[in-house]
């Protein structure tokens, strides 16, 4: 049976731990602390928590000012508001001066569900990856979230960590070893490499299991850090397997797929296929229904793997002998 846990609760609990260790940790929120779980920190350290109200742009500026004064600042909101709403502030006040601010955003992707299109953050990774100073991380489960948040606190510079609203399957155990910028190969395989992030890692593992029974060997890589990208693992995957499938809960452009494709095109071109939201906004609905509709499922990944194998065969056939 799959055990599920909340990434945002893991965040809130980790903040308390960090707050105890380091008195320079300050937490900001924009009237969503009950949902982002920063209220857990606020209860423990009320003097080091500031609710900035519905002022996301101002919150980012305040975060920058605190960081410029030597603080390690965590600022949280929903992913949609923490990216689109304050992009210029992120760019000029945090990215350009490379200040020590960690944006940890919950409610990423379409699994936000019923709140609908306005609340589905599916452009956030593209935006954050366009800011050169930001380290961008999408943890695969609650345990990895804890490790990523700790790593962010311990590493100077801007971070963006995207978490989910619903509980997600646990794929790691306590003691999980996490290194920023270093992907994790979850399963070895020689035919196709599935590179996934966030909630798509568990689905990639499921797909790989089904495909193994059909004689297709898949390598599954958890590419939790989008920037800086683990280029070495991508080049290795392109060299040691025959094709690459990238799976992400994001629009087609500017996210993991685009970034991996850039490396593959430059270093070792192989056929690729992409499981993502293409160019379409989603709808209101239960998160499971929305994932199903968009094809962000284990079955969707299986299909992509088969397609890319087919394409591979075709391209071999077309090659002059």
């Amino acid at each position, binding site marked *: 049976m799959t055990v599920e846990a909340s990434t945002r609760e893991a965040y809130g609990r980790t903040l308390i731990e960090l707050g105890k260790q380091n008195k320079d940790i300050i937490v900001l929120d924009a009237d969503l602390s009950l949902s982002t779980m920063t209220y857990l920190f606020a209860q423990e350290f009320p003097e080091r928590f500031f609710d900035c*109200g519905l002022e996301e*742009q*101002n919150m980012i*500026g305040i975060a920058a*000012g605190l960081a*410029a004064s*030597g603080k390690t600042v965590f600022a949280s909101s929903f992913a949609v508001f923490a990216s689109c709403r304050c992009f210029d502030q992120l760019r000029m006040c945090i990215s350009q*001066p490379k200040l020590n601010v960690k944006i940890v955003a919950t409610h990423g992707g379409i699994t936000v569900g019923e709140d609908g299109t306005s609340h589905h953050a599916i452009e956030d990774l593209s935006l954050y990856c366009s800011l050169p100073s930001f380290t961008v991380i999408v943890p695969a489960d609650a345990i990895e979230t804890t490790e990523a948040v700790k790593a962010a606190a311990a590493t100077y510079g801007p971070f963006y960590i995207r978490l989910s609203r619903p509980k997600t399957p646990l794929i790691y155990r306590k003691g999980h070893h996490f290194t920023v910028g270093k992907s994790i190969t979850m399963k070895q395989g020689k035919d196709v490499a599935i590179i996934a992030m966030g909630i798509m890692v568990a689905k990639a593992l499921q797909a790989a299991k089904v495909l193994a029974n059909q004689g297709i060997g898949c390598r599954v890589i958890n590419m939790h850090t989008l920037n800086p990208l683990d280029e070495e693992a991508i080049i290795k995957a392109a060299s040691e397997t025959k094709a690459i499938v990238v799976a992400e809960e994001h629009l087609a452009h500017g996210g993991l797929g685009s970034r991996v494709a850039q490396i593959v095109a430059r270093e070792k071109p192989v056929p690729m296929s992409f499981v993502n939201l293409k160019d379409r906004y989603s709808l209101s609905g239960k998160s499971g229904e929305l994932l199903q509709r968009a094809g962000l499922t284990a079955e969707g990944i299986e299909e992509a793997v088969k397609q890319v194998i087919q394409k591979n065969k075709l391209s071999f056939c077309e090659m002059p002998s």
Partner: protein
Amino acid sequence: MSNHIKVASQDITGTNVFDLTVPELMEMAKKLRCHIITMIATAGSGHPGGSLSAVDIITALYFKIMHHDPHNPRWKDRDRFILSKGHAAPALYAVLAESGYFPVEELTTLRKLDSRLQGHTDRNLTPGVEMSAGSLGQGLSFGIGIALAAKLDHHDYQTYVLLSDGECEEGQTWEAALSAAHFKLDNLTAVIDRNQLQLSGWTRNIMNIEPVNEKWQAFGWHTIEIDGHNFDQILTAFEEAKTTKGRPTVIIAHTIKGKGVSFMENNVEFHGKAPTLEEAKRALKELE
């Protein structure tokens, strides 16, 4: 240009290291105006109008009001000056150079490739610059972060933020105005360089911000209105701001865009246009 004042670190005593008198401040401001003209004319681009309107306020802060150490730009107890209107960078650079943060000779590298003096301020490049700015309306939020840090760490340094009046059109300025009062930041002082002009014309025609004083009062700020070119009034206002408790203070400084150069005064053309070399010569002659 080489006779700028030298200061030693050990001079720091809790008062401004220069402690200029009003006549000396006036003399200094005149010299700084000459730097601004020379720098922008040499660069061939820049914003003379808003630099000249703001320079008296910045002069008063660095040469009389603020505790700071040009030899130790990141001294933790320093008073902070945030230039939110980043296009007035030449005024700040001139002040920083004359107070000893970097050589005055460097001023004419403004906007040139590999210069530390970028077109708009960069906190990682220029000694003494607190904030990277240029996209308007963001400085007050940054100042709030610094003022909150002072409260958290029980430091008694002051934070000063200089805004343009055009920045009062940016929504974020009012988010910041709300929150500074909410957080009761009496260690924060905003100054509005109310020169009445923005890039395309008079603020009252582009986007009317009046009544300015009443707006800030309604947002919970202590307000002071002064002539932003009168040093007695500038100094008195900063003293009043420092002693105001429980809420932040905003000084609405009525200024003249292009102040000090007759053909630039109240002339919107010189918002973002460099004087030609001939115009620069005329300007410098007027200022002498």
